[in-house]
């Protein structure tokens, strides 16, 4: 199972120059708590992730700089140079990255370094739960078939 098969594709993005208030509005409208800050790479012309911005980051910024909230931009508050994972990498590698970085979400990039999705711990959990269900199903079916064949 690779990252590309499990990650969410519909990512909500902002640019570093967007106002923080606009980012908050976007979180409200799109029902998310995590935004990826993207910038066009001059060489490849793709949108690459340069930071991540969570609802918690916004709240922390509000307390720290309350008077200048209106002047804050996404780029001022984001976590820069986020740990990312390639679509082609394994889930094990992704979990290792999450653990090393102490995060629950990783922006996913494609072969040209472009943002192509987000993988969260919840996505992996959902997949694992499905696998466990299959194991339980296999056990149940074995019992059932055993009961039918040998009765």
């Amino acid at each position, binding site marked *: 199972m690779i990252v590309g098969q499990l990650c969410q594709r519909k990512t909500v993005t902002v640019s570093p120059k967007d106002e923080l208030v606009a980012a908050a*509005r976007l979180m*409200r409208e799109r029902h998310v708590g995590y935004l990826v800050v993207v910038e066009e790479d001059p060489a490849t012309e793709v949108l690459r992730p340069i930071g991540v911005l969570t*609802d*918690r980051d916004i*709240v922390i910024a*509000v*307390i720290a700089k*309350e008077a200048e*909230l209106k002047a804050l931009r996404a780029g001022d508050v984001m976590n820069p140079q986020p740990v990312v994972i390639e679509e082609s990498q394994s889930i094990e590698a992704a979990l290792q990255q999450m653990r090393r970085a102490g995060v629950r979400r990783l922006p996913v990039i494609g072969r040209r370094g472009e943002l192509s999705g987000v993988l969260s711990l919840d996505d992996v959990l959902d997949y694992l739960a499905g696998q466990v269900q299959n194991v339980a199903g296999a056990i149940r079916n074995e019992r059932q078939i055993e009961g039918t064949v040998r009765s």
Partner: protein
Amino acid sequence: MQVQQLCTPRVYFCSPRTSVLGAARLMRQHHVGDLVVVDDPDGDQTPLGIITDRDIVIDVLGRDRDPAQVTVHEVMHHPVVVVDGTEDLTQALERMRVHGVRRIPVMGSGRRLHGIISLDDLLRQLALHTTALAAVIEREQSLEQRTVR
């Protein structure tokens, strides 16, 4: 296992009359993402509501409202889903599933809050069980290898 054996004992409070900015400061101070709203932290700690950092962004900042001018009461979630400390973990998980929440305040005796239990706490417990299961299988397989020889 009972909820009170696993839950995080530290809970942080605020009053419904606290400003959202005040609540944000408290969250920052205690390094948490939510506060339980009660009228009297020294008396009846039955939660009136819960406020999270997400609520502050979505309901206040995302609506161009000034956090210093909005009270916690206007933004908090209520009624609050709670669980008793003596209930089993499976009941806590069921409640989380039914109500779609990831954290639940845990009530102790005498209308006092015992702590908070989160989906992460339950997940870690499940992972421990899974590891124990894997250890049983591992042992069985290694014994099998030795006997066959």
